[in-house]
């Protein structure tokens, strides 16, 4: 099964986003690299607005991800509540 992944610039906001991903995606693997962080999840990776809001202590629009994003892998589905990356095989 292929990994879906996402990478962010390392900063305070993305730290909360990464924590949310780890909570919502059992099996997530974190790869810490200079000034960036990459998270791999087998098959499907989901970022939930509610969890990120909990971590940040403020309301969060999932499209704010754009500011910290570096790269992604997988087919993307974007709604108001969830940002999902997945592979069919």
């Amino acid at each position, binding site marked *: 099964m*292929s*990994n879906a992944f996402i990478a962010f610039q390392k900063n305070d906001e993305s730290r909360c986003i990464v924590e949310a991903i780890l909570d919502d995606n059992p099996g997530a693997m974190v790869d810490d690299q200079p000034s960036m962080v990459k998270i791999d999840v087998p098959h499907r990776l989901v970022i939930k607005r509610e969890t990120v809001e909990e971590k940040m202590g403020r309301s969060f629009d999932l499209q704010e991800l754009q500011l910290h994003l570096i790269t992604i*892998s997988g087919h993307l589905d*974007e709604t108001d509540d969830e940002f999902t990356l997945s*592979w*069919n*095989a």
Partner: protein
Amino acid sequence: MDMKVAKKLGLKERYSLMTRDLAWDTTFQKMADVFPQTTYEGIKIHDWDKWEDPFRLTMDAYWKYQSEKERKLYAILDGFNQNNGHLSVTDARYINVLKLFLGSTPPLELMAARGFSMMGRQMNGAGPRVACQMQAVDEYRHFQTQIHSISNYNKYYNGMDEFAHQQSRMWYLSDGKSFFDDAITAGPFEFMVAIGFAFEYVLTNILFVPFISGAAYNGDMAAMTVGFSAQSDEARHMTLGLECIKFMLEQDPDNLPIVQRWIDKWTWRGTRKLASVGMMMDYMLPKRIMSFKEAWEMYVEDNGGALFKDLARYGITIPKCFAQTVEEKEHVSHQSWIGFYMKPGATPFHTWIPTPDEMDWLSEKYPNTFDRYYRPVLEYLDAQEKAGNRYNNKTQPMNCQVCVSTMKFNEPGDSMEMCFRESVYRGEKFHTCSDHCKEIFDNEPEKYVQTFISSHQALQGNCEPDGVDVDAPDYRPGARMLDYWRLDERATGDFNGSDDQKNFAVWREQATKN
């Protein structure tokens, strides 16, 4: 009082209102006449409304987030420059990677901006038109911010000021130029596979992710902020390329062989373009985070492999060149660096022999190839340099007619043999670097006979600075190549003994002592 509160529209609805709802089918003119380019490549589309928009950025959100990205980027650049950030990079050798980047990357971003502006006009569907238009604006931003981020270095170091002039003329920049020229002169769907898939998914994932992370590791906050800021847009671009591939495959089974041929072709062209990025990672970053081979495995073998496995349900198979790329990942960065090292008089950046501990790092990262094939060459060149005989190849290179790389890659399965292929078209011989480039040539020879190869053009008298009389009796073709390139001689030659090396040492000394 009863107040009816309108429910806020969801993301999907908002996006579809902006795209589908604002678009219309033409009636005074036939749609086929308004959008004539989307049929001649043989791709059959039956229903443009089946296009799924991956990112659903409406205009207000797009401007909001892009302007926020710009504010962050320029704040970091200002801070870095204000504080003489250029002196905090690991050592002055690092700056040469920026010179190579400046010549090779921003001009391609500009070509991407042009190409996607064309796609924004040529695609029938409103969904892809909007996404392509946004991508064109993004690419323009990349072109500008990359130049801005490096302009501060240009105040202190040699060899950066003529990159725009050199882009269409300089021998080693021809591979990237030909990549985009090939793509932009193809039809719209091939362009989407070339740039949306091969360039965004294969190339930018290595150039703007591990390489930029490496730049950050070497203390270059300017390259870090501009590279990652660009890549945040590229994530959107990759999904657009991917969606276009899925869309073609879903629309008609007849599209499969055409798409497969493009995937085969552009995976190979992307691979060839990456050889110099490999050298930037393995040789030009004084501090290294990962080898090119490791980056290749992560972003091309695993990530590309994931995509091909996923597309297998449409009948797509792994690109034909894949096995060869796996073999070559242990060779190309070394072959590229040695190739550049041997031409010290012909590039506006310096080259050098890696230090002994850097060679040990290369041995460790390339256990199958470095000690066996490349260390002996580098040690020989080093001994020659120390004996006052620095290698300097003054001949014109031979280039591949398709990818325009200099011929330097080995025969598959035989690392000691140089690989050449030959085709004959209308009685003339053309050379390619590999089976895959030969196949590309043979499929469209009338296109690739037009490739601009500076070594050929120079001998034909087409590479002369203004004022040279090519009919004069004492005319020698190519004798004034350096003027034609506007090559700053201070920027050429070995790093050892260069102005950059001396100046950096003096300035750093001033920055750290009273």
